[in-house]
């Protein structure tokens, strides 16, 4: 099936209701859920991310786009899982202990889902034990978000913890986090925004071309 332009556009412009309607109608017409996701919705999210990195769209549009995407995913995810679609890789993401900010983290998670990754979202106030469990469940990369300068130090604790486990990549982000801080704590990757997060995960997992 070719790209469904209306669906692509509805995700890009954040028309939540529209996305739900199109997905329902298409499914009723017998469309393949994996194709709806892979050919229309994921490209829309990817496109938003790329335009974000080019300063062509901003946080407001990203957020409403991600919310529309989520509305579609709510319908499609169970069907796609049933179809046994294979993700690009598995990552886990969480806001570190002490911190409850999750709007940015949710956006990053959505971008990564949109890029075809399996995302284990650990939520907020996540401690090392929870990250550890996700890694044991198959996460290849641990993504940490912090929005408070006071909770950033916990990122170092997590990075230190995973140093001993070769192969597990630690990627950090959030408004107060800088590349300099990421280097200082020995994280494998850092991205400034949701758009750039996909590229950095691909790079860390050796998927980038």
């Amino acid at each position, binding site marked *: 099936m070719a790209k469904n332009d209306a669906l692509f556009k509805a995700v890009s412009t954040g028309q939540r209701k529209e996305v739900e309607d199109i997905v329902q109608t298409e499914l009723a017409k017998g469309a393949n859920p994996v194709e709806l996701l892979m050919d229309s919705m994921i490209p829309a999210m990817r496109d938003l991310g790329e335009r974000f990195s080019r300063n062509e769209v*901003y946080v407001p549009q990203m957020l*409403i786009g991600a919310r529309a995407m989520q509305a579609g995913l709510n319908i499609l995810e169970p069907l796609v899982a049933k179809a046994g679609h294979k993700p690009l890789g598995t990552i886990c993401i969480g806001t570190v202990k002490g911190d409850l*900010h*999750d*709007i940015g983290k949710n956006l990053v998670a959505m971008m990564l889902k949109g890029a075809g990754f399996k995302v284990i979202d650990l939520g*907020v106030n996540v401690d090392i034990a929870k990250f550890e469990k996700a890694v044991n469940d198959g996460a290849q990369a641990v993504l940490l978000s912090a929005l408070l300068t006071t909770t950033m130090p916990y990122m170092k604790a997590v990075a230190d913890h995973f140093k001993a486990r070769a192969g597990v990549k630690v990627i950090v982000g959030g408004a107060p986090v800088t590349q300099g801080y990421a280097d200082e704590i020995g994280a494998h990757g850092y991205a400034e925004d949701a758009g750039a997060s996909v590229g950095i995960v691909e790079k860390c997992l050796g998927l980038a071309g």
Partner: protein
Amino acid sequence: MSVRFRIRGETRIQDGPSGSALADLAFAAGIPLNTACGARGACGRCAVVLREGTFAIRGAEVNVTPGSPRRALACGTRTVSADAFVEIPDKSLVEQRASIADDFAIPPFPWTPVQRRTTVSVSAGDWETASSDVERLALALGAAGGPAGAAPDLRLARELPERLAATPRLDVSWGPFRGGVDVTAAAPAGTARHLGLAVDIGTTTVVALLADLDTGAAIGRASAYNAQMRRGDDVAARITASLAPGGLDLLQSLVVCETVNRLVGELCAKAGCAPEAIVRVTAAGNTVMAHLFLGLPPAGIGAMPFQPVRRRHPECRARDLGLAVNPNAIVDVLPSMTGHVGGDLVADACAARLLDRKGLVALVDIGTNGEILLCPGARLLCAATAAGPAFEGAGLRHGMRAAEGAVDHVRWTEGPKAEWTTIGGAPAAGFCGSAIIDFVAQSFRAGLLDALGRFDMDRLRAAGLEARADHRGRPIHACRVVPAEATAAGHALTVSEADVAEILKAKAAIHAGIVTLLAAAGRTLDDLDTLILAGGFARHIHLRHAAWMGLLPDLPAGKIEVIGNGSLAGAVLALGGPGAAAEFERIVRVAEPVELNLRPEFESAYIDSMLLPNADPSAFAAATSEMSAPTR
């Protein structure tokens, strides 16, 4: 080792050990360097030009020779060579001549000082009666209509014989202290004034008001930046700074010695009175500021579960804090509701008589912390929505605080062409928050900005307003508002789409916070009867523009009250408002914190509020119709 700093055409020389950070040397030289992120190397505001010498930039040694200057962050650069020459550009300095709100509008009240003064005649005593200087003083105070059983502390007791030797007629200042009555000062009758100091300790600015305790007359007001600013702009940065070795002591002395004491000096010099005449000090500030003022470690407020050391602060003595007033003066710091809703909001609530209002009332402080109070009936819900410093101009390409030269209002006229005013009529130096609100609201109305905060570039181009800017190393759309000729720095002042996005994030936080608090009370925007705006910023904004852009609820002007610096008002009430202490206690006791993160409505409301005016414009009917009316 010494560094020559060049600043505003002047040279200042500062000595210090080799290996010192340039930022620290600059502070030592009295230079108001902007270290917004608390010298973490994250904000880029402290950029300087290295002219000559050997430096270590983030650990890497660099030799700079006169012909080839180099830019570097002052916080990440250390001196290596014996002598160095560094230039500090104006834009790396904290704004000077700030306009700081030192006024407030509260209903008149009968002045009822907590600290009173009584003239007494202390008897000489006789050897047949077992008594003492202190007891005879207490007796005399009771006989003169004062309280019974009041006593001076050890320090004043030590001085009592000398005072009594000079004269038995004393003016005795007494007031409540930790549940008892304290004799705070005793001066020869008719010689000293009887003064109180009310202080608003803001994260950015500090305002002090000197009052005559007996009459309530305001003798003077003075304000300044909080000297703690050099350790970062917001409360979280200060908490982080307090964790460094010696950090807490430094922060305490920055606010007490380098800020409040200087204001005291200024006020006393102007009023021609001795600082010793100040016998009671009341202070209101957010929870972190109150902790740092008192030297209490604020670390617990930094992360979940956001626990302060204390919410209520028993009175202490000026000498315990290092305040340069009467060493015995009683210091009374207003209590806090939670780790992030502090004594400044208790003060606002008291000044606005929030608990005694009829109808559904919300009180909002539009600022970095974005505290919101909602008063449904006898309840008081509180939250902090953390809007961030965008309304103070931080994070915006040409943003600045409200200070001389700041563009404070903007208007689109035919063309479209911008008209603007600046604070003090000085050449334009940047935009402060009130101008940004005007700009966003009116640009949206004129169709120059769409609901997502994107410019209509065709129209900007046609009107000759298109500007070149870059953001994170890539070009970005921007609108020229003030042409180069009218500016201080000789370059045009622009607003970029990234600036608009920052403002949208901040306004969304405030609006979503209000909506979420209402939801927590089972109410909606439609139910809101009164909106009270506290804080200096709200005094200067165009309220309809704030509604057009979806920052504030779309209420008619008659339902909005602007009280100004309610924090200072509360501190004044603590000095002389009838029943103020009981009212503070009532507010703290009924306050119910609402953790916005844990409310499912917040995220959705936040995303809706990111749009202009809102993804759900139903609550902005009046604003929408005003905006669609033809412009004159």
